[in-house]
């Protein structure tokens, strides 16, 4: 198994890379949480704690030419897909130099022209946009690409989820829809969200392929997400991936998540995927505590540098701002009101 290749990387290389994205995402999230507590970030901060393995697996399974629509808990996947740390920091801090130029913030960031979609808040709404990109590329004769869209289990209750998964199925698009079932939508448990035994059961009703995985286990994440992506790439149509895990944090940093039960935290689902990955890497002699420490301090330095840089950068200036939502200059209504 160590010699199987995924893309051009060996499995071990992939695992090591994934772990490092997970670690960096965890540390980056923690930094945002700290900045939030210090009053340096307005609005909300949303962490991916406990979901880094799944998220990293998605990002790492994609090629640069693929399409990625992450959601609020996907810092790891974003990094793995190639987002520079500075983009994340600038967006949270509202820097004028960030990809969103202070117009949008926190997790609402991306670069659509690079196939990396900045989420709108409305859950489920990004999936059909991914469909559109895949659809357009097919019209242009571009093949071998995949579009990955991330959702929480709560978002499966939206009409948008349904319409877009069905649309992808009808059009046989290479969509990989990854549902992170972290047991809660904000405070709402799955029992108030759906009544099926397993979300993966939805696949048959759409005529798409399903994959279930243990989101706490980074090997399973890498393998299962990797093969779903490969199936989509090979032309087998949409793939529905359902990961079981537990949100190891509040919905946002304002939320103490008192509603998550101790039984859940203490169950296998409550394992910290980062810890699981470390144990596995150690057990398989792929890395040791000293190495982890080095990676950690490297990541911290990178993050601190990015924060320091973004904090020095200009805030957006309302006087320089072009107050128009249209790209067509000549159609702007010039009248100030």
């Amino acid at each position, binding site marked *: 198994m160590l010699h199987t290749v995924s893309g051009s990387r060996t499995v071990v290389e992939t695992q090591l890379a994934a772990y490092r994205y997970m670690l960096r995402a965890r540390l980056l999230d923690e930094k945002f949480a700290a900045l939030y507590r210090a009053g340096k970030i307005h609005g909300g901060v949303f962490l991916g704690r406990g979901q880094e393995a799944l998220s990293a697996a998605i990002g790492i399974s994609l090629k640069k030419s693929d399409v990625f629509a992450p959601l609020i808990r996907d810092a790891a996947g974003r990094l793995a897909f190639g987002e520079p740390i500075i983009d994340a920091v600038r967006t949270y801090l509202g820097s004028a130099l960030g*990809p*969103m130029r202070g*117009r*949008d913030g926190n997790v*609402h960031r*991306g*670069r*659509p*022209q690079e196939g990396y*979609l*900045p989420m*709108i*808040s*409305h859950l489920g*709404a*990004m*999936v*059909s*946009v*991914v*469909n*559109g*990109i*895949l*659809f*357009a*590329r097919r*019209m*242009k004769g571009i093949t071998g690409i995949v579009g990955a869209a991330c959702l929480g289990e709560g978002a499966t209750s939206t*009409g*948008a989820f349904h*319409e*877009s998964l*069905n*649309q992808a199925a*009808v059009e046989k698009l290479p969509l990989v829809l990854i549902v992170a079932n972290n047991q809660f939508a904000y405070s709402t448990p799955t029992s108030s969200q759906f009544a099926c035994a397993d979300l993966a059961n939805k696949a048959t009703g759409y005529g798409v392929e399903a994959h279930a995985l243990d989101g706490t286990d980074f090997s399973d994440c890498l393998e299962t997400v990797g093969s779903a992506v490969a199936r989509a790439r090979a032309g087998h149509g949409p793939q529905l991936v359902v990961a079981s895990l537990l949100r190891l944090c509040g919905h946002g940093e304002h939320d103490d998540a008192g509603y998550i039960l101790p039984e859940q935290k203490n169950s296998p689902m409550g394992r910290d995927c980062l810890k699981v990955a470390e144990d596995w890497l150690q057990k398989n002699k792929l890395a040791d505590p000293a190495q982890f420490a080095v990676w950690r301090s490297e990541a911290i330095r990178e993050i601190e540098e990015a924060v320091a840089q973004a904090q020095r950068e200009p805030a957006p200036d309302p006087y320089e701002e072009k107050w*128009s*939502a*249209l*790209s*067509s200059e*000549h*159609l*702007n*209504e010039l*009248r100030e009101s």
Partner: protein
Amino acid sequence: MSITYLEAIREAQAHALRDDPRVFIYGQDVGAFGGAFKATKNLQKEFPGRVLDSPISEDAMIGLAVGTAIEGMRPIIEMQFADFSTVAFNQIVNQASTLFWRTNVPCPITVRLPFGGTSGSGPFHSQCLEAIYAHYPGLVVMTPATVEDAYSMLLSAVAIDDPVIFCEHKFLYYHLKAEKLPSEALPIGKARIAREGRDLTIVTYSAMVHEALAAADELATEGWQVEVVDLRSIKPLDTDTVVASVARTGRLLCVGEAWPWGGVTAEVIARVAAESYGLLDAPPQRLNAKDTPVPYHPNLWAAHRPTARSVAAAARKLIRF
């Protein structure tokens, strides 16, 4: 030869498909069937692979369009009726309309909305939603009143780098005719003086232009010269042409088929009141549909919307003010 408003819309789409490989059409029954109103008749045959049936998923239809726009395509989305765009509302107002502002990536999609009342269509196949979309930043809203504008403005809609809500009036589809298609047109954002006059300005758009013109005919027999301004697009809205007309006539009546609260007529009056206050010899007035859903029975429907008769009555009252 003569060409209808509906045929003009079909021709514009054929033209756009022919000229620009980035254009495609997506909507319910638009393919082999040619659309509920036949606005895409034969286009699938003429342009294979570029005129595609969608499932009954308005939300996903617009989402998909935005995705293709990100990839540089120029989709035309047909809503079967404007009324059903309420299901796609979120994708239109939050996804399409914010894309450029948030990301600097243009979103050149055209959403065709067959809209407005026709006899017997009732509350869910008659709605006028132009004001709803115009209120949101990031959308261009067109409301052509003539065959020529239906054609040339739809071509512009496809060419524009922003999302366009193209409100095509079903009442005009079949009985509005022109001799030929235009080769030139006023720019988008420019209103048109549909009829000149010196006693009163009626500002309106879409099907109501024809009611206003008929009212003007009627008033002409009474000796009054009514000027009719066809806004053509309601966002951008050509305040200058409106103000210039009001400066000439001193009297303003705004007519719209939409509901009375807010909307185009309120917006026009607010602009005129702010900018050309001294020019008015009488208070500016509005005539809109009544504040209920659009009724099914022809008698009720005829009383619900403004007509030549009610426009003439309102104009008469205002002239005599």
